[in-house]
């Protein structure tokens, strides 16, 4: 299970006795996003320009990434939000549980113009981010050349930080064990493949420091508690650009994922929500987010609109896709996620 989320939820349960504002009026769009630098970037790239263009007022809500709250809203028929940002796996869950509206792409944009896997039935992609490896060159004398160097404790001794979650770690374990990126999910769908991945993780288990929250990897690197860490590329780039840390990102064998946005069932203002989705899905608008946070566009035809200085930092910049990389398979995690999370927790506790 996601301890990070649990931790945040625990905070929310006890502190955030916030009520979700008043019901949206006709020209008000209520968007629930997961806060932090990412929501700030969305505000500058999309919320404010959309407001200016349409005259609609955007009400921002923050939440902690769990669908339980949205489910409660939908079940009780009181849905005070029109849009919610979610992870891909959450889109599938929400779809399955009947919490999220199945999207009508004729109101959003051509579905085939989205990068494969970023236009789902119940959610449309906002941006692409990379699960990468980061290190501090002032600590590590020899530079890692691939994320898979996580598993090379001889060449790179010392603690390494990894996300306390099976996704990505199992994929990397299999690739480090010699499985080609194209076959990773095929192998992982078999019990033998899962055993193989866990066996590979066993080899470095004692060297792993687990991280939960997205901000932790940069902290762990900065405090020199670990010599390398997996991370979301935007967080490390932020530490490099804003905090002037000397960190370096290894893109080879990165895993690409998408952030999603969805309409909860029973939203009060679906038409305006669709208008917003269409707005941010226009190639030029889709590319704007990259100027505020280093996450790339999900439209295949948006690359030419990305600001020149932002492009080299994006996970899906041509340079970063030159080596090996893997696109996270949402359907796979929809199928096996719950089971593998349980197995991962059992493995952690052993």
């Amino acid at each position, binding site marked *: 299970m996601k301890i990070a989320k649990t931790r945040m939820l625990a905070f929310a349960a006890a502190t955030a006795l916030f009520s979700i504002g008043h019901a949206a009026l006709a020209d008000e769009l209520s968007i629930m996003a997961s806060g932090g630098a990412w929501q700030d970037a969305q505000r500058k790239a999309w919320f404010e320009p959309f407001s200016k263009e349409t005259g609609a007022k955007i009400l921002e809500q923050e939440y902690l990434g769990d*669908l339980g709250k949205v489910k409660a809203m939908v079940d009780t028929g009181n849905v005070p939000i029109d849009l919610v940002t979610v992870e891909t796996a959450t889109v599938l869950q929400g779809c399955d549980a009947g919490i999220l509206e199945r999207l009508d792409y004729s109101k959003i944009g051509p579905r085939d113009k989205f990068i494969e896997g970023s236009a789902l039935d119940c959610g449309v992609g906002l941006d692409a981010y990379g699960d990468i490896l980061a290190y501090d060159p002032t600590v590590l004398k020899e530079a890692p050349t691939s994320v898979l160097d996580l598993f090379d404790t001889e060449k790179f001794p010392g603690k390494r930080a990894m996300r306390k979650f099976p996704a990505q770690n199992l994929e990397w374990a299999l690739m480090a064990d010699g499985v080609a990126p194209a076959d990773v999910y095929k192998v992982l769908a078999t019990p033998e493949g899962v055993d193989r991945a*866990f066996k590979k993780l066993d080899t470095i288990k004692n060297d792993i420091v687990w991280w939960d929250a997205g901000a932790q990897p940069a902290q762990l690197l900065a405090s020199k508690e670990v010599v390398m860490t997996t991370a979301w590329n935007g967080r490390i780039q932020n530490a490099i650009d804003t905090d002037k840390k000397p960190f370096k990102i290894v893109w080879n064998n990165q895993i690409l994922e998408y952030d999603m946005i969805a309409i909860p069932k029973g939203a009060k203002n679906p038409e305006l929500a669709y208008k917003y989705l269409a707005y941010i899905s226009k190639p030029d608008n889709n590319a704007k987010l990259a100027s505020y946070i280093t996450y790339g566009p999900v439209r295949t035809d948006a690359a030419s609109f990305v600001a020149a200085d932002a492009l080299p930092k994006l996970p899906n910049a041509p340079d970063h896709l030159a080596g090996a990389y893997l696109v996270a398979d949402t359907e796979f995690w929809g*199928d096996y996620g719950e089971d593998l999370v349980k197995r991962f927790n059992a493995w952690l506790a052993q």
Partner: protein
Amino acid sequence: MSALQPSELDRPALARGRPAAGADPKTASAAMRRAEFGDRLRSLALAAPLLLLLALSFGIPIVLLLSRAVYDPTIADALPRTSQALADWNGQGLPADAAFIALAADLSENQAKGTAYELAKALNARLPGARSQVLKTVRQLEGAAGKPPLEIVKAVPFWSAPGTWPTIANGTHALTSFYLLSALDLRWNADGGIERVPPEQAIFLQVFLRTFFVAAAVTLATLLLGFPLAYLIASVPKGLAAILIVAVLLPFWTSILVRTAAWTVLLQKFGLVNDMLLWLGFASERLDLMYSRIGLIIAMTHIQLPFTLLPIYSVMRTIAPSQMKAAYSLGARPFTAFRRVYLPQVFPGVMAGCLLTFILCLGYYITPALIGGASDQLISNFIANYVNVELNWEMAAALSFILLVFTLALFGIFARILGLDRLKMV
């Protein structure tokens, strides 16, 4: 009230409303009985709104939620034709083609009703990997106009795989033991018997044991700290006792989250506790107190201390100091006097305090989430995860149910050993 004469029960009722005064004793006693019955009715009527509120807002929702653990009609509702077609299937090999045709019809209907996703999720909870197969088949059925549905379903290898049909057949019973068994790391095997799940998938028994272990450790720690403190408070002058009680209760008035967060500050690697230990020379290097079992027990002990201490204190206060003096004067040594005179009297308070703390500890959620590490998560954390993240409320209900049963069983054992009336709460 005086004992009833058996014969009284058989006598015809006396005239109502007649004043009882002056009547013979038997009549008086019957009238009193009636009056008492009326009193009881009246007090029941007064308490009725509260009882009703409790039942409506507490009892019924809990029963409804817990019933999800054994009642999950999703698959049965989604596959009515298939259920019928499987009625006389013997469970061996593949069912007849009729079942495949019924399945195709059911799947198409689910797609039309928009419930295909719910079905896919419910099947996937029992058979990982089923989700995408169900949705794929549904899409193919929708897309292939004119092609016989039987062919389409047969063309998807999943529907002919060994585990698929037994799972479906099992799922068509709305009453299910699947979730309860899963919560105990058990499952049905192919022969219809119950077996343990493979060790790499077994997790809940371990977590239950961990939960009980942590609860027991915290209870013991609060008792060791609380008993002497309660004794101290009970034996000092009243004014000082009041100050000490306030000192004990002060953290009690602070939110549990704030107290937990404070422990994070104290226990972290470069926190105050580690600084102190290094400075005093008790430790040669910084200890991992955060995200560890020991840190969790420390923080929980702090939060639970008043719950253990107060019942003990309330009993100790009632014991006159002269009793111990009497014991000494009769020649008992201090320990003997303590063991034979003092301890038996405070025992109910000790038990009440420990029981309260132990049961509260079983439900801890925030503190393990914030202070415990990966292997210190208690059962509530898993329940919360199934509710909030996995949206598998059936599994959450099953785990809650097992926890409730364990807790009630423990309570029952306590009550049996001690007698409920001897438990002295504050």
